[in-house]
């Protein structure tokens, strides 16, 4: 059960992502060679600080409204007269700072995560639902989504996560949908959205804003939180189509198909080709196709994206057992096969991890076959050699940093837990802390290259710091770190605190200690980029403590800087 199950709602609107981009070039981390122009916007001749050097890091919903609901009995409406939730607003927090969008690393910018995001459903100024979005990274980034546009405006990506710490105030709403949702999933909800048409032009009125469509549905304990076990559909021509997923709801005799990030669009956001498609199953064996038509996939529908969030529901009637038994295919009107189901499939739930030396992380992998748990299946792992971000410096080395186990086997529920242990990478990148690694996975009887190439595990392993330095740091010890933040985040260094200035740091030791000590999930945590190692964090806090102990006075200028 997840966002594709009933009862679900769809929403659409806009989002703002305002990352700072000076750090998009790994060489900008080198304090020795940093130039002031790296803090400027790129111009025709020079990349400088790329397209948004003054980013705040904020990520927020803008103008997002609930557009449709699907009830537990499978019926849907997009009419506010039927259900007052239609037209309510999806917003982030109204009483703390916006969530943050954060790259894992300057050399792995393709799994950016949302931290500290609050998700609320509001009606006018009344808060109906308030919840915390569990940190999640995007995946399935597709650079060919809007082929007529440039830069990241071409791209689309999806985020899937869960909403926790939910407070409900639905009694006065008189919404059948909300009552049903509360009755089946009051503690946690599943949420997924697709983002595209992101505006990177800093002279445009829509700068840092993009389009979003999504869905919220029930979540049940024990299920993965960032993926939906379903019917993974592999594009047969990845240059014009992208991965999709579907679930079969056998109670309702329906197939629910998420195609939001699967087809190319024009600059106006409409599908380049909105011809309807055919869903079929493939009874063929040994590479021969034997297709049986199941139903039509309607794309030629003005509501398809903005109202239905690119989700198609196909009534299966008496064909449910066929669909449960055989792999799916999707065909175009000329009978070309656009998608084939990956019959046996394995996918990591959480796929982005930060590790300090000698720390371990556990990766939950789920093996499935035609949407059902696949037990007793062996899964293998391999470090990825090719860089997945800009270079230099060299990424992914030394490989000995990462300890991977021998193949592991899925249990009766299809689940397998991979434990990854990290050693100290030993500062292989010099001016950038730690190292990034990628771990590919697949069944032992399949090829890594056959995977969805977004399906790998990303790791950032930090360097260690000499314990005596951590315990008793001088300004000179922390200056290189502070100088780097000052260089890379000009909005902070010019607008609030220049962290490279000892006087400023010392005079604001109390507030700085406060934000450096916050929980990483807090949107006020510093650094917003979440790229500070355990050891360096301790070193900075110890330095600030020593200032506070020495001075014994309150910050002298914090309030002058508000």
């Amino acid at each position, binding site marked *: 059960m997840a966002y594709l199950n009933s009862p679900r709602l769809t929403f659409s609107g806009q989002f703002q992502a305002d990352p700072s981009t000076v750090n998009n070039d790994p060489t900008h981390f080198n304090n020795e060679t940093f130039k002031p122009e790296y803090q400027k916007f790129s111009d025709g001749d020079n990349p400088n600080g790329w397209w948004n050097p003054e980013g*705040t890091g904020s990520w927020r919903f803008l103008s997002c409204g609930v557009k449709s609901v699907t009830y537990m009995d499978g019926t849907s409406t997009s009419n506010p007269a039927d259900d007052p939730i239609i037209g309510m607003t999806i917003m982030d927090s109204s009483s703390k700072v916006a969530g943050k969008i954060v790259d894992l690393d300057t050399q792995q910018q393709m799994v950016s995560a949302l931290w500290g995001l609050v998700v609320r459903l509001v009606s006018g100024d009344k808060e109906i639902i308030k919840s915390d979005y569990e940190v999640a990274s995007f995946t399935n980034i597709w650079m060919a989504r809007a082929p007529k546009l440039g830069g990241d405006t071409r791209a689309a990506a999806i985020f899937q996560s869960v909403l926790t710490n939910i407070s409900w105030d639905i009694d006065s709403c008189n919404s059948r949908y909300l009552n049903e949702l509360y009755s089946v999933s009051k503690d946690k909800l599943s949420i997924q959205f697709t983002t595209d*048409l992101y505006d990177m032009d800093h002279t445009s009125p829509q700068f840092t804003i993009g389009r979003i469509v999504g869905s919220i549905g029930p979540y049940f304990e024990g299920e993965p939180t960032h993926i939906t076990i379903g019917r993974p559909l592999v594009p047969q021509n990845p240059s014009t189509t992208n991965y999709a997923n579907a679930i079969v709801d056998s109670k309702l005799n329906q197939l629910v198909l998420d195609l939001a990030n699967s087809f190319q669009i024009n600059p106006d956001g409409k599908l380049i080709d909105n011809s309807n498609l055919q869903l079929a199953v493939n009874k063929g064996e040994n590479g021969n196709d034997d297709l049986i038509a199941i139903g039509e996939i309607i794309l030629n529908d003005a509501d398809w994206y903005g109202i239905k969030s690119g989700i198609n529901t196909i009534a299966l009637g008496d064909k449910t057992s066929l669909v449960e038994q055989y792999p799916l295919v999707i065909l175009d009107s000329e009978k070309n096969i656009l998608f084939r189901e990956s019959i046996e499939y394995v996918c990591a739930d959480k796929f982005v991890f930060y590790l300090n030396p000698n720390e371990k992380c556990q990766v939950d992998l789920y093996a499935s076959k035609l949407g059902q748990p696949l037990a007793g299946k062996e899964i293998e792992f391999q470090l990825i050699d090719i860089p997945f971000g800009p270079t230099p410096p060299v990424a992914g080395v030394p490989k000995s940093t990462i300890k991977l186990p021998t193949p592991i086997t899925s249990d009766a529920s299809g689940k397998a837990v991979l434990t990854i242990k990290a050693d100290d990478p030993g500062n292989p990148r010099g001016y950038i802390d730690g190292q990034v690694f990628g771990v590919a996975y697949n069944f032992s009887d399949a090829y890594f290259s056959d995977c969805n190439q977004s399906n790998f595990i990303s790791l950032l392993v930090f360097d260690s710091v000499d314990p005596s330095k951590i315990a008793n740091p001088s300004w000179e010890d922390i200056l290189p770190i502070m100088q780097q933040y000052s260089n890379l985040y000009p909005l902070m260094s010019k607008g609030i605190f220049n962290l490279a200035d000892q006087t400023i740091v010392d005079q604001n030791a109390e507030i700085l200690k406060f934000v450096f000590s916050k929980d990483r999930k807090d949107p006020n945590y510093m650094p917003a980029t979440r790229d500070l190692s355990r050891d360096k964090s301790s070193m900075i806090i110890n330095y600030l403590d020593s200032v506070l102990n020495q001075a014994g006075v309150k910050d002298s200028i914090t309030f002058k800087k*508000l």
Partner: protein
Amino acid sequence: MIFLKAINIETIEELRSAVQTAIELEHSTIPPYLTANFTLVNTGNDEISNLIGSVVGEEMLHLSIACNLLNALGGSPVLNQPGFIPTYPGPLPGGVDTGLTVPLEKFSLDLIKNVFMSIEEPENPIQIKSMAMAEDSMTIGQFYQKIKDKIGKLESEAKQKGSTIFTGDPSYQLTFAKFFPEKLLFPITDEDSAIKGINIIVDQGEGTDIDPFVNPEDTMEEEPAHYYRFEEIYKGKTLVKDPSATAGYSYSGAPIVFNEKNVPNMKENPKMADFPKDTLAYQYSKLFNFTYTCLLNSLHLTFNGQTDQINESMGLMFSLRLYAGKLLATSYPNQPGYVAGPSFEYVTNEDLNDSDTALLAQKPS
């Protein structure tokens, strides 16, 4: 000098209402001071900026003291309503209409002299005599004196009946020792602590009759009262003890130089609605105002039982500064030579989500 409408306080309800007015009044000076200060960021005017910033910090303290007082008196501070923010340009809350008009403007020496010094002008008996004071008006000093008097009167009446007017839940009292020493921000639980709190507000704002410097008990560092800090900026010299001067003090200390060159040419009194919706100025104005509204929401929670929420408020204050910077770096639409600026408007969810379908459908660059 600011004149407030004369108020009558007889009952505990009227006392609470007067303290709510005090909260609004203490808040109302923050947007104009902050706006001027935002225009000084990175302009080589750190000294002036720190002086204004120190006043802003103390206005925040005064707001907190007033909220603690209202909570102590069994009231509930209201900070999250549209009417909480005054309209700029306009009179301050509780002010008489014929009084001073307070704008949101870039920093200038004229603004310091004509507005900020007027707001903070102490109650000087000689001046008061020479000013035609409307019969139904009072000074800020008189306003707080009246509150103090009525606290004394109502509390002694209550005590005679074996009760107290300090009926508030003590857990609602905000202290924030990380940033405000407890001698300045402390729980208000009785008449003594209430009077002590009000005295800090008045002393930091006006100083005493004989000394322009704030009583050392009432401050973190040696500093003149607000009026004199602004006058230092206007005169361009720090205020120092000067035995040769008649008052014993003169503006003859270290120079405070104003570098006008880099101050952004912010158009005065911007309004979000004045920016065309298809402009970056509108987007940033909306985000600034949303952040400001979030800050008021957060402060409202802080002073209504969720004292830990002050930490979220702090984050929002920094965030506000960033969006002000973005506005001041953005051209004012259709006004060549001017930049946009902060408007400090309360936005509702509807304001924020006026999803303009034209914008949604707009072809991205």
